[in-house]
């Protein structure tokens, strides 16, 4: 019985042209557009150490941890982050005015203060570094006592976007491809939403037929979801094949983990679709519109239209991106590519799984209803 229904669910999905366009073809078109739009920028994009200044006064002399940290981060090498000048307060202000530096750091009453020309990514990175060193000062002190050489490494680990930026070949395009994978995952929701809608008596006429039949709707929903998932995994396979072989995108060494996160993301997308199908009673077209809008907004916050957005949200509204499935997928892939340590990757996967489980539980609760006040 499962196979009979599964077969028909597949047929229903594959014959829905607009659904197939959005879920299978649209991501490929986007990939092509990104490739065209970013291929020029990519070549000129190399991270230059950022010119900053530190106000060298009596207060600074007290900040032993910061001194060592900035010395480590300004050491020449492939991963040099700062080009630090040590100036007087007026010297620093003049240098900023003359645009010789992007920002300067000063301590007043033991508190760090950053003065910047503008609030760009560079300033954000400097702020993050200073914050992390401040927050982790106990750990830093501990390390200073035991093995001062480890300090630079710790700062790098603790300040994620710092390390991204300090990579010699920072690739903006990669982030775009990651958001694209996230979008494709979330679009699984469009398929599953349509699939589930078919079997709900209060949502569709076919659902009424199901409701009066001796087959409990949960079996139909289950087969519909399996078919949806399969189709969107195929969509992901298309996207990977196209980007890897057609656009020569390099997803790094841990491709298996890239796939794992994509598969989990696709599951989250599928669950999202069930959630929308079961909780909101509007027309199917309205639901599709809602799914597209929400997915795109999530991807936008995750940096699809420019990575600055991701920095801004990560910095100012961290919770929003920590709960945004599009960002969890993007960020996990990103972490995988840029870090040697995958803690952030795993924490993203776990969050994604938890969100998925919560959504599924709410959906099951919504779906349990079998008799309605009106149809």
């Amino acid at each position, binding site marked *: 019985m499962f196979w009979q229904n599964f077969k028909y669910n597949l047929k229903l999905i594959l014959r829905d042209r607009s659904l197939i366009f959005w879920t299978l073809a649209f991501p490929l078109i986007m990939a092509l557009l990104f490739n065209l739009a970013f291929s020029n920028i990519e070549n000129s994009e190399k991270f230059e150490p950022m010119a900053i200044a530190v106000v060298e006064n009596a207060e600074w002399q007290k900040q032993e941890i910061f001194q060592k940290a900035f010395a480590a981060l300004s050491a020449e090498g492939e991963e040099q982050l700062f080009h630090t000048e040590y100036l007087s307060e007026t010297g620093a202000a003049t240098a900023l005015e003359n645009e010789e530096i992007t920002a300067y750091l000063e301590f007043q009453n033991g508190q760090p203060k950053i003065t910047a020309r503008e609030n760009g990514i560079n300033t954000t990175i400097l702020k993050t570094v200073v914050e992390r060193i401040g927050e982790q000062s106990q750990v830093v002190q501990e390390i200073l006592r035991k093995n001062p050489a480890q300090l630079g490494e710790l700062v790098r680990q603790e300040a994620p976007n710092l390390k991204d930026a300090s990579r010699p070949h920072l690739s903006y395009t990669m982030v775009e491809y990651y958001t694209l994978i996230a979008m494709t995952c979330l679009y699984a929701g469009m398929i599953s939403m349509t699939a589930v809608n078919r079997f709900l008596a209060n949502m569709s006429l*076919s659902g009424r037929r199901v409701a*009066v*039949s*001796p087959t409990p709707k949960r079996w139909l929903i289950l087969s519909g979801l399996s078919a949806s998932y399969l189709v969107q995994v195929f969509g992901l396979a298309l996207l990977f094949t196209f980007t890897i072989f057609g656009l020569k995108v390099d997803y790094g060494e841990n491709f298996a983990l890239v796939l794992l996160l994509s598969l989990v993301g696709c599951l989250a997308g599928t669950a999202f679709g069930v959630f929308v199908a079961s909780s909101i009673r509007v027309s199917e077209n309205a639901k599709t519109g809602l799914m597209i809008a929400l997915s795109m907004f999530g991807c936008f916050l995750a940096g699809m239209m420019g990575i600055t957005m991701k920095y801004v949200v990560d910095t100012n509204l961290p919770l929003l991106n920590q709960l945004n499935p599009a960002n969890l997928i993007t960020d996990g892939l990103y972490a995988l590519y840029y870090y040697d340590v995958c803690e952030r990757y795993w924490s993203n996967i776990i969050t994604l799984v938890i969100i998925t489980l919560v959504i599924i539980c709410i959906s099951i609760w919504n779906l349990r209803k079998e008799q309605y006040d009106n149809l």
Partner: protein
Amino acid sequence: MKHKKNSTAKLNVLEVTHLTKNYREQKAVDDLSFAVSEGEILGLLGPNGSGKSTTINCILALLKYQQGEIRIFGEPMTPASYDLKRKIGVIFQEVAVFDELSVYDNIDFFCGLYITDAAERKAKVEKALQLVGLTKYRKYLPKQLSGGLLRRLNIACGIAHEPELIFLDEPTVAVDPQSRRRILDNIKKLRDQGATIVYTSHYMEEVEELCDRIIILDHGKIIASGTTAELKQLVKDRSVKQVVGPTLNDVFLELTGRELRD
């Protein structure tokens, strides 16, 4: 066994007692009671909005209702009455088929909700195709069918599993005369094969032709019931007509008005 000996006491396939259903404040079905015995075609006749569909959806346990009891084959009907549902076939008022699936696949899908054995199902789907006369359209998509053929597909999807109790909710609305003839003949054939049928319509003459017994509904209430002959007598008899009053008259006016426009 007992039933067979006592030929006058036919089993009640469906029993509705004191069914009341409100949509918010609006009363759609008002303390409705009736029974359908085995092999009978019961006609629910009434103008639009008189509560026919609501009654059927309550009987099928799709809708919650404020009051009343529904028994099918002697057992209470609930959403989880899967054994009862197995014996029931429903043709809803609106055409409910998948646009993406062919005629054959649609019938096969919905029949598959009842019949799991593939060979048995194949035979039943063929039989249903033949009954409604869609055999040569089996590969067509619903959008390639005319309104009448689409209605016939809708019926095939509801009865392919050969149910013992069939609900047909206005199956002939907006159907060309040929298809209507065919549909009425199909229903008679289903009855001849032993099915019990509840048939709703707002066409007086359809009900008259098909049904063994008729219930006339208005505003969710029974305003008259009986065999065709009994009802005709009721209309003819002026004094009774005054008692039953303008409502019954309204029903007929409504019906004739519709007929002219068709």
